[in-house]
C-alpha cells in the first residue's frame, strides 16, 4: 500500500479554469422568496369567502336562477329558520354521532393496521393487499354485504364509516412509516430499543406527519360517507336531509346542507392542522 504515488495529478490551474477576463455575471435579480411567509390560520378562509361572494352576486344579478341554486343569503335565512325550529341541530347531532364514532374506530384500526403492516413482513403480506382491495371497491358495492352481516342498524353504518376512514389513515401512515430514515432505525438498534419502545420513540413519531395527512382526509370522509348511508333506515342526519331535498328539488335546503358540509370541512381541517402544528412543533420545515 505504499505506492500511493500513482495518483493522478491535477494542477490547480486546470481546476480553476476560465483564464479569460472575468465573464459578466448575470445581472443579480432580487432574490425570489422561496419559502412563503406564514399565512394566519384563518387565511385559508379567503378563497371560500370570495366564492360565496361571487355566488351571491351571481344570484342577486339574476345570473344564477334560484330555481337552480339558492343564493347564500336564502340559505342563511333557511338555515336560520331550521335552527330556530331545532331541526338542523337534530339532523346534525344524529350525523355527528355516527360520523365521529366511525371516525374514532376507523382511525384507530387504520393506525394499528398501518403499524402491523409497516413493521412486520407477515403483517404486510396479510394486511396490505386486503386494504388495497377494500379501497378499490366502492362503498356502494359493500353495502349489500354489510347489510347481510351487520343488519341495517347503526352498527352497519358506523362499520362502513370506519372502513372508509381507515383507508387514508392506513395508506398515509404506512407510507410515512416506510419513509422513516433508516439512520434512525440503526440508532434504535444500536441503543438496543425493544419493539415496543421502537414503536413509541421512533416509528410513531416518524410516521406522525403522514398520520396527520391521513387524518385530514379522514375527518371529511366520515361525513361524506353519510350521504349514502343515511338512505338506510334513518330519518335523521345531514345526509338524509340532503337526499330528501334532492328528491324534491329543495334548493335552499340543499344549500344549507352544503354550507354545513363546508363549515364542517373547514373546521375539522383547521382543527387537525392545529393539532398537527403542535405535535410537530419540532419540525423545521418549509410550512412550519
Amino acid at each position: 500500500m505504499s505506492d500511493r504515488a500513482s495518483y493522478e495529478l491535477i494542477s490547480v490551474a486546470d481546476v480553476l479554469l476560465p483564464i479569460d477576463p472575468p465573464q459578466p455575471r448575470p445581472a443579480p435579480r432580487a432574490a425570489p422568496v422561496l419559502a412563503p411567509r406564514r399565512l394566519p390560520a384563518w387565511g385559508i378562509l379567503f378563497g371560500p369567502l370570495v366564492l360565496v361572494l361571487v355566488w351571491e352576486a351571481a344570484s342577486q344579478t339574476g345570473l344564477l336562477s334560484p330555481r337552480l341554486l339558492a343564493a347564500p343569503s336564502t340559505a342563511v335565512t333557511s338555515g336560520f329558520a331550521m335552527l330556530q325550529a331545532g331541526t338542523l341541530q337534530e339532523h346534525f347531532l344524529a350525523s355527528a354521532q355516527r360520523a365521529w364514532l366511525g371516525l374514532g374506530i376507523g382511525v384507530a384500526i387504520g393506525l394499528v393496521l398501518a403499524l402491523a403492516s409497516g413493521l412486520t413482513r407477515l403483517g404486510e403480506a396479510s394486511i396490505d393487499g386486503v386494504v388495497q382491495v377494500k379501497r378499490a371497491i366502492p362503498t356502494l358495492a359493500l353495502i349489500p354485504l354489510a347489510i347481510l352481516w351487520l343488519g341495517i342498524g347503526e352498527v352497519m353504518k358506523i362499520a362502513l364509516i370506519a372502513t372508509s376512514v381507515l383507508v387514508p389513515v392506513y395508506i398515509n401512515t404506512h407510507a410515512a412509516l416506510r419513509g422513516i430514515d433508516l439512520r434512525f432505525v440503526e440508532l434504535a438498534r444500536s441503543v438496543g430499543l425493544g419493539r415496543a419502545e421502537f414503536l413509541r420513540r421512533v416509528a410513531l413519531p416518524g410516521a406522525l406527519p403522514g398520520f396527520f395527512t391521513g387524518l385530514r382526509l379522514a375527518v371529511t370522509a366520515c361525513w361524506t360517507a353519510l350521504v349514502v348511508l343515511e338512505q338506510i333506515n334513518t330519518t335523521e342526519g345531514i345526509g338524509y336531509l340532503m337526499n330528501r331535498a334532492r328528491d324534491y328539488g329543495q334548493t335552499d335546503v340543499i344549500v344549507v346542507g352544503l354550507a354545513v358540509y363546508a363549515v364542517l370541512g373547514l373546521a375539522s381541517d383547521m382543527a387537525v392542522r392545529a393539532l398537527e402544528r403542535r405535535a410537530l412543533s419540532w419540525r423545521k420545515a418549509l410550512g412550519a
Partner: protein
Amino acid sequence: ADLPRRVPPGTRLVAADQNQALQTMMQASGEHGRLAATVNYANFLGGPAILEAFRAGALDLGIVGNTPPIQAHAAGERIPIIAARTSTEPDYKFAVRPGLTVATLKDFAGKRIAYAEGTGRQPFVLRALQLAGLTRRDVRLVPLRVSDFPDAVRGGQVDLAPLNEPHFSRYLAQWADRGASALPADQHADLPRRLSYLYASGRALDDSAKAAALRDFVIRWIAASRWSKARPEEWVQAYYVRLQNLRPEDGRAIEASEGEYRFPALSTLIAPHQSTIDLIHAAGDIPRRLDAREEFDLRFDAVIAEHAA
C-alpha cells in the same frame, strides 16, 4: 288548443330512459325508425338525476313512474305528463320475511315495512296502509334504498317489502325453504297498478316543432308498447335476455308481471294522481298541496284517444 302536427326536418329530441327499456322497445319494435324527429336516448338509473338533467335543459322528455312528476312539480319545475300507460297488475308485491305470514293488509299493524321516500314505492306503501285503515304510526316504516329492499327482507331486517320482478319471484323461489312468503295475491287487488308516464319539459312543449315531435313520439310509443305485448317472446329476448343478460325465465316473469297495457286519457288520471299527491303530502314530504291538473298536458288526450283505441 291543438297540438302542432308538422315536424320540421332536423327536429331533435332527447329522451331520458331507464335501464334502456324505452330505447330497446322503440328499436326492437321498429317504431324508432318511423319517428319523425331525431330522438336520442339518455340512460339513467334513478329519478333525481333525471329531474336535475331536465333542469339543466339536457332533456326534452322522459319515461318515469308515478312520483317523479310530483317531485318535479314540488321543485317548481314544469314537466307535464303527456302520456300514460297503465297495467292490469299491481305495481309491486309485498314480500314477507322468512318465518312470518301476513294474510291481510290489516295484519300490517305493528310490522316493519321497507319504505323508500321519493320513489314509487312510497305511495304504494302509503296506499296499502290507507286501505288497511292504518296510519303511519301503526307500523314502523323503515327508510331504505330501493336496491336494499331484497337484502333487508330476506335478512329479516324488515317484515314486509314491496318488491318488483325478478326479485319477488326469486325471493319466493329461493327462500321457500326458510319459510319465505308474500302477501296473498288477492290482497293486492286494490293497490296501485303499474303506471308509466311520459313527461316532457315545458320548454319543449312551448316549441312548436318539438311539440309536434312529441306528439309523434307518443303515437310511436303506444305502438311500440303494443308490439311488446303482442310479441312477448321477441321483447323478452331483445331486452331481458340479450341486453340485460337475464335468464329467459326471469325475463318472462318480469314481462308477465306487467300484465296488459292500457293507455288512458290523461283527464281520467287527474283524480287518482291527486290522491297520490295527497298521500305524499300527508306524509309530510311536500310542503304544499299540489294541484294534479297542473301536471298534465291535456292537449295530448286527442292523440291518445285516436291511437289507443
